[in-house]
């Protein structure tokens, strides 16, 4: 099957999913699918710097928090226009990435992991100290966000909005990694010294990738707040950052759509296993270890290998 047809079918299935859920009398799945789409955006954005830039960030959940608090703070002041929330999140997420990136990108490898983690923790404790916006307990959003005439508290509407953002970011991401910029980013992942000797100021490329990645993840944070009508520091816990890294690795690093696959599979696994036993984390851990051993290139690599064998 040609690639374009495959993508068209997948997109049609994604768009029509709420109707299928209705027919099956399982409206709950729309909310679950929205959650998958949101985390897919976050994982996709992380894959840009992790997979293509070779920069392992353990602080990416900070951007989820920035997006969520952009929605939360505006809503608590009576501003419910989603475009205002989104614009704020893009600006704040981009600025946070710019400032922290300028510092973090002076390092690489383990030091980069530590610094991104540290910045995310700083933001976490900042949110805890924001007593006016719920502090530790978080902030419940009483008013639904609105996108023009659309009410984002409607499950289906929010689902379609999330899918639209996901498709937009996937298209932008694919364009970006195939561009000159993307080529330089990937070259620097592989051989920094050669890239500098060729005359590339690779720190600038990495910083820009980091900013773009942070902006996309901030939108995921907005959508998360729209969905849960609740904002709390827990959105940017370092465990959440780790979960995003696992999604990217599980799906297949440096492929973009692998990140979407990884987000979906991890969330489905969590859901299914949690329904089976309260010791589900043990089983999930075993599955992840097995994946790391047999499929170094993630599910994407596994699928590609199976296709090649046939």
């Amino acid at each position, binding site marked *: 099957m040609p690639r374009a047809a495959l993508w068209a079918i997948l997109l049609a299935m994604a768009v029509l999913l709420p109707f299928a859920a209705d027919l099956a009398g399982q409206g709950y799945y729309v909310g679950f699918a929205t959650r998958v789409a949101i985390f897919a955006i976050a994982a996709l954005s992380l894959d840009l710097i992790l997979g293509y830039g070779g920069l392992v960030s353990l602080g990416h959940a900070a951007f989820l928090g920035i997006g969520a608090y952009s929605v939360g703070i505006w809503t608590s002041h009576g501003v419910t226009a989603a475009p205002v929330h989104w614009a704020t999140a893009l600006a704040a997420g981009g600025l946070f990435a710019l400032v922290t990136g300028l510092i973090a990108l002076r390092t690489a490898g383990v030091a980069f992991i530590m610094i991104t983690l540290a910045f995310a923790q700083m933001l976490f404790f900042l949110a805890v100290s924001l007593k006016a916006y719920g502090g530790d307990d978080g902030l419940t959003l009483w008013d639904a966000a609105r996108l023009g005439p659309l009410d984002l508290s409607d499950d289906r509407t929010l689902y379609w909005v999330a899918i639209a953002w996901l498709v937009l970011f996937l298209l932008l991401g694919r364009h*970006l990694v*195939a*561009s*000159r*910029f*993307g*080529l*330089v980013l*990937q*070259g620097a992942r*592989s*051989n920094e*010294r*050669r*890239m*500098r*000797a*060729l*005359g*590339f*100021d*690779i720190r*600038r*490329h990495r910083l*820009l990738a980091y900013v773009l990645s942070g902006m996309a993840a901030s939108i995921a944070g907005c959508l998360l707040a729209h969905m849960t009508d609740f904002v709390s520091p827990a959105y940017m816990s370092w465990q959440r950052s780790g979960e995003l890294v696992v999604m990217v690795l599980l799906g297949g690093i440096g492929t973009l759509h692998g990140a979407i696959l990884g987000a979906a599979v991890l969330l489905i696994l969590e859901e299914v296993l949690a329904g089976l036993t309260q010791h589900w984390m043990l089983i999930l851990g075993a599955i992840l270890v097995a994946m790391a051993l047999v499929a170094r290139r993630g599910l994407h690599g596994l699928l590609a290998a199976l296709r090649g064998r046939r």
Partner: protein
Amino acid sequence: MTPLLSVRGLVRRYGALVAVDHVEFTVLPGEVHAVIGPNGAGKSSFLALLAGEARPDAGEIEFAGTNITRLPAFARARLGIARAFQITAVIPDFPVLQNAVLAVLASVGRGFGMGRAAMHDPVLLDGARRLLARVGLAAQESRLAGDLAHGAQRQLELAMALAGRPRLLLLDEPIAGTGPEESRAMVALLQSIRQAPGERPGIVLVEHDLEAVFALADRITVMAEGRVIACDVPDRIRADAAVRAAYLGDDAR
């Protein structure tokens, strides 16, 4: 003739070790200036200082009338200083063609190029294919660079260094470690580079293969323990007693 590159009183220390000790050095336009010396003489450290990968503790480096002592490596590359490393430095997980495209991009592209395709751009592709043809790698453009034979990787690296029509080439042992066939091909390639009309880059050649050095060099600088112990035309270097002593010490080990 004004030198293309002139180095004055260059010093680099690593702890108590003085790796480069008050080195004076010049390269004239179109000249091949070889640097030889026993292991640990400071040749690679010296080259790293010229490329901007390490900062000198003292001294000045002037290139084409500009003081570049404080410039980082990427900025020196943009001024026209290209580099091939001792340990071959290509992008191993990119195909050969993509490596060459990257090198051409470095020479033509400014800005980020987020809106511009890379591997479908005829300007980049044509330039890249011309480069590969020049070093004889045209037939291997779709192989992964990391899968090439060692000698072919060296040729690819040299092609990448040539993409920006550099005014100065810094070559760190381009011949060492290659087989006799590959080594002859590399010497021929270097000859063709220095004779190419209109380009004639200055070349700093650090090399252990003395046969190649004597075949290529216009001048030879001999280093030992971080210091320059001789600098002259090849014939006089061959006869120099101090040089013999330095190499005899090396051979005796």
